[in-house]
C-alpha cells in the first residue's frame, strides 16, 4: 500500500505521464488527420458511445484513445495523491509564512480544478445526447429528445445576403414551448444558441425546400388555391369535400406490376395521390401531376383540381445537444484559471519574467 502511495505521490511520475500523454496525442492528431473516414465522426455521438462502438471495431486506429484514457486515469490519481499530500503537509507545519501558505493553497486549487474538469469530462463522455440535422420548416415544432414535454418552434427565418453573395445574417426566430404555452422567444444565430435545462439548440444552416403542393380548384362559380402539406393527414376542406394528400412522389415512375415509385430524389416529375372524402366516406381517389396539369387533373362534381405548383418554405437545420458534464468541466476550468492567475499575482518577484523590475543588463 505504501509503495502504491509512493508511486502516485511523485512529481517525477507527473513529468513522465505528461510527456507520454503528449506523445500519445501527437500520434492521435496524425491519425485523426490521415484517417478521417474512421476517426472523423468521433464528435457526432456522445464520446463513449463512439469509443465502445466504432472505436472498438477499429482498434488499429483508436488504440491511442484507450491509452490516453489509461494515462489520464493515472495522472488523475497522481494529482489527487499529490494534492492530498501537500494539503496534509500544509496542516502539519505551522511555521510557513502566510505568502507561501497562500501560494500552496492556490496551487492545490489549481490541481483540484484540473481533477474536477476531468470528472466533468468523464460525465460528458458518458451521458446526454447529440441530435444533429433536424430540419424544421417555418411554423413547425421539434420536441426535445429526452424531454418531450418541451419543444421548440421555428417561427421565421431571416437570412440576408450581400450583393456579392456572402451571407451577412442568419437568424432563426424560435419559441420555447411547454405543452401548448410559449415560455420564451429567442433569436438563435451562429455563436448564439438557445440554452434551456441543459438542452442546447444550435442553428447550423438554412435553406428553402418544397413543404407541400398547391392545387388550383376551379369550377364555374369558384376558383381557389388550396395549399396542402405533404404529410397533412386531415387535409383541407373544399365545397363540402375533404381533400387529403395520400402520397407524394417527387419523380413519378411505375414498375411493370403497376406499382408507383420515385425514380429519383429530384423534383423532376412530382405527382400527388389525392383522396377525397365527403364526411368520412371516400368518394374519389386519383393522381395529379405537376408536369401535366391539363391532361392529368382530377374532376369532382363539376370542379377541376389541378396540381399547379410546389409550395416552398424556409427551413432551419438545428442541432440539439445535451451535455450534463459541461457545466462541471467549466467549473473545474474556472477554478483552475482563477487559482493559476491568483498564483501568478501572489508570486511577487517570482512572477517577474526575468527578475524584479530592477535592472538586469545583459552585460551583467
Amino acid at each position: 500500500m505504501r509503495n502504491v502511495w509512493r508511486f502516485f505521490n511523485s512529481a517525477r511520475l507527473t513529468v513522465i505521464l505528461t510527456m507520454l500523454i503528449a506523445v500519445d496525442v501527437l500520434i492521435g492528431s496524425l491519425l485523426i488527420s490521415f484517417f478521417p473516414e474512421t476517426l472523423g465522426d468521433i464528435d457526432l455521438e456522445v464520446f463513449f458511445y463512439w469509443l465502445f462502438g466504432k472505436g472498438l471495431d477499429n482498434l488499429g486506429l483508436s488504440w491511442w484513445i484507450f491509452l490516453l484514457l489509461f494515462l489520464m486515469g493515472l495522472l488523475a490519481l497522481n494529482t489527487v495523491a499529490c494534492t492530498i499530500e501537500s494539503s496534509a503537509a500544509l496542516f502539519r507545519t505551522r511555521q510557513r509564512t502566510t505568502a507561501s501558505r497562500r501560494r500552496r493553497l492556490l496551487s492545490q486549487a489549481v490541481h483540484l480544478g484540473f481533477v474536477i474538469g476531468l470528472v466533468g469530462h468523464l460525465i460528458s463522455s458518458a451521458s446526454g445526447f447529440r441530435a444533429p440535422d433536424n430540419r424544421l420548416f417555418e411554423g413547425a415544432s421539434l420536441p426535445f429528445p429526452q424531454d418531450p414535454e418541451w419543444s421548440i418552434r421555428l417561427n421565421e427565418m431571416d437570412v440576408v445576403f450581400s450583393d456579392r453573395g456572402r451571407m451577412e445574417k442568419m437568424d432563426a426566430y424560435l419559441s420555447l414551448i411547454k405543452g401548448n404555452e410559449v415560455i420564451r422567444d429567442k433569436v438563435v444565430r451562429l455563436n448564439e444558441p438557445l440554452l434551456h435545462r441543459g438542452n442546447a439548440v444550435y442553428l447550423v444552416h438554412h435553406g428553402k425546400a418544397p413543404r407541400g403542393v398547391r392545387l388550383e380548384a376551379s369550377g364555374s362559380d369558384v376558383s381557389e388555391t388550396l395549399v396542402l402539406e405533404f404529410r397533412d393527414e386531415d387535409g383541407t376542406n373544399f365545397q363540402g369535400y375533404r381533400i387529403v394528400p395520400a402520397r407524394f412522389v417527387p419523380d413519378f415512375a411505375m414498375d411493370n406490376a403497376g406499382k408507383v415509385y420515385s425514380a429519383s430524389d429530384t423534383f423532376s416529375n412530382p405527382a400527388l395521390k389525392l383522396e377525397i372524402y365527403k364526411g368520412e366516406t371516400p368518394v374519389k381517389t386519383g393522381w395529379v401531376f405537376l408536369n401535366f396539369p391539363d391532361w392529368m387533373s382530377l374532376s369532382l362534381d363539376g370542379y377541376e383540381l389541378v396540381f399547379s405548383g410546389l409550395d416552398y418554405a424556409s427551413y432551419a437545420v438545428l442541432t440539439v445537444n445535451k451535455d450534463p458534464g459541461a457545466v462541471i468541466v467549466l467549473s473545474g476550468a474556472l477554478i483552475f484559471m482563477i487559482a493559476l492567475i491568483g498564483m501568478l499575482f501572489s508570486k511577487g518577484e517570482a512572477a517577474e519574467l526575468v527578475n524584479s523590475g530592477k535592472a538586469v543588463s545583459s552585460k551583467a
Partner: protein
Amino acid sequence: MIGLLLWLSIVFYGASLAGSIVDAASRSQRVWTVSVYALVTAFSLLTTVLILRMMETGHAPMAKRYETLLFFAWSVALLNAILLFRYRFRTTELLTTPVIVLALLLAAFSDPGVYPLPLILETWWFEVHVITSFFAYALFTFAAAAGAVYLFKEKNGDAAELKLFQEITYRSTLWGFTFFSVSMLLGAIWAYLAWGLYWLWEPKSAVSLLLWFYFAGVLHTRIVKEWRGRRASVMAVGGFGLVLFAYLGVGIFLTNSHQL
C-alpha cells in the same frame, strides 16, 4: 503602403539583430544604443502595419496566414520590447529576433488578399481566443530561447548565470502556460456556443491539448531534481518545435477545421 512598411520593419529588425550580435561580441555602448533605436523603429513600423491592416479589413489581424504571421511576429516583438524596457534584458534577442524576421519574411511572401470573415468568426470570442494563444506562443518562444542559452552556457557559464536562465525558462513557461490555458478555455466556451461541443477531436485541438500537457510537464520539472536545468532546458527548446508544429505545421500538413 503596408507592404513597404513591412519590408522596412524587416530591415530594421535585421539591423537590430546585427547590432545585438556585434554588441554580444564587443560590448560597445554605442552599438547597444544604435541597436535599441533600430529595435524601437522596427517595432513601431510593425505596430503601424498591424493597425493599417485592421483598418483595411475591419477586423483583428488574425484571420488568414498572412495576418497571423504578422501577429505572431508582433507578439514576440512586444515581449522583446517588454524585456528591454522593463528589465533591460537582451541576451535572448539573438534567438528571438531571427524568429520575428523569419515570420515577417514568410508574411511578406504570403497572400495579403482581404477576404470577408466567415459569419462564425464574427464574435469577440475569436479575437480573445487567438490573441491569448499567440501571447502564449511568444512566451514559449522566449522560454525556448532562454533554454537554448542555458544549454549553450552550461559548460563554462557560472552558476548564478545558469540559475538566471533556468528561472527565466520556468517563469516564461508559467506565464505562457497561463495564457495558453486561458486561450483553451475561451476556445472551449466558444466551441460550445458555436457547435454545442466544448471539445472537438480535430487535429488543431488535439495538438493544443498536446502542447498544454507538454508545458504542464515542463512546469513540474522544477520540483524533480534530475529534471531541473539541463533536461528542463532541452524540453523548453523542444517545446518551441511543438509550438511551430501547432501553429504552422497543422495548417500545412494536416487537414483541420480550424481557420488559422
